[in-house]
């Protein structure tokens, strides 16, 4: 198991050049292993801005690599840095903060809408088949239709598996706010799934052969 740079210093400090080379090598290894996962998270959060966001994350991580205490937790550490960078981007971009009036969204139920509209009349398992009609890019397009304040908690909780407390810390919001946005984010997501499926003709009726 690799020890952290700090730990090595505590024992017997090797020559400075060697330590720097080791550190750079350790960072390169962690960063290269993490790039695919970081990109996945960045694309879900920032859409087309994903590559820029990963670049910012890599530079910040490199600058503060000394603060990584547990190398085994390197990916999670870089994911947190990426979310921080994303949050800073949102702060700079004043267009990205609308709290949307969503009374009608709160009442929307995709389950009920599907049961009532029955868009796949030949299906024996309507609700599951509806979800299966979405490809990966369709899901991405639906997510991009959500306001950022709802998208970020949804992505972090249900796609990346962060706890709600961790999300509150990452986004710098009270836990109650995160929970409320998660609730509305889910409702928004359901509503946009339905809207997108209709607009993109995902629900063309196919008679059984």
């Amino acid at each position, binding site marked *: 198991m690799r020890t952290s740079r700090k730990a090595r210093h505590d024992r017997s400090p090797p020559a400075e050049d060697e330590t720097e080379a080791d550190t*750079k090598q350790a*960072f*390169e290894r962690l*960063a*290269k292993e993490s*790039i*695919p*996962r970081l*990109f*996945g*998270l960045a*694309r*879900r959060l920032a859409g087309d801005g994903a*590559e820029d966001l*990963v*670049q910012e994350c*890599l*530079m910040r991580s*490199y600058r503060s690599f000394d603060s990584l205490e547990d190398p085994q937790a390197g990916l999670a550490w870089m994911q947190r840095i990426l979310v921080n960078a994303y949050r800073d981007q949102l702060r700079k971009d004043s267009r990205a903060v609308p709290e949307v009036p969503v009374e009608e969204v709160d009442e929307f*139920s*995709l*389950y*009920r809408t599907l*049961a009532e509209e029955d868009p796949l009349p030949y299906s024996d398992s309507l*609700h*599951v088949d509806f*979800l299966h009609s*979405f490809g*990966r890019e369709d*899901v*991405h397009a639906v997510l991009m239709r959500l306001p950022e304040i709802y998208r970020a908690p*949804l*992505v972090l909780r*249900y*796609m*990346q*598996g962060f706890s*709600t407390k961790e999300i509150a810390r990452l986004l710098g919001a009270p836990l109650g706010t995160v*929970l409320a946005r*998660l*609730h509305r984010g*889910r409702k928004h*997501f*359901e509503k946009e799934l339905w809207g997108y499926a209709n607009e993109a003709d995902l629900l063309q009726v196919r008679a059984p052969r």
Partner: protein
Amino acid sequence: MSADERMIPCSQAVRELWDYLDQRLSPEEQADVERHLAFCRRCCGEMEFAKELQGFLASHGADEIPPDVKEHLERLVEEL
């Protein structure tokens, strides 16, 4: 009906389903949802669908990174 056997309406049960699945409700609230689900077939359907949606989201967490983007980012790391 005693307080610990109260029946919550569908609107409340549906609102609390995801928190129920995430095990974020108090024991009392959890019992309320379970009591409701025991007699309401429609809300059982809502819950099954909520589970499907959670699995759907979890399975769409990441995309393949395009090879040229991966290469570009790896080069950036080497040049840092």
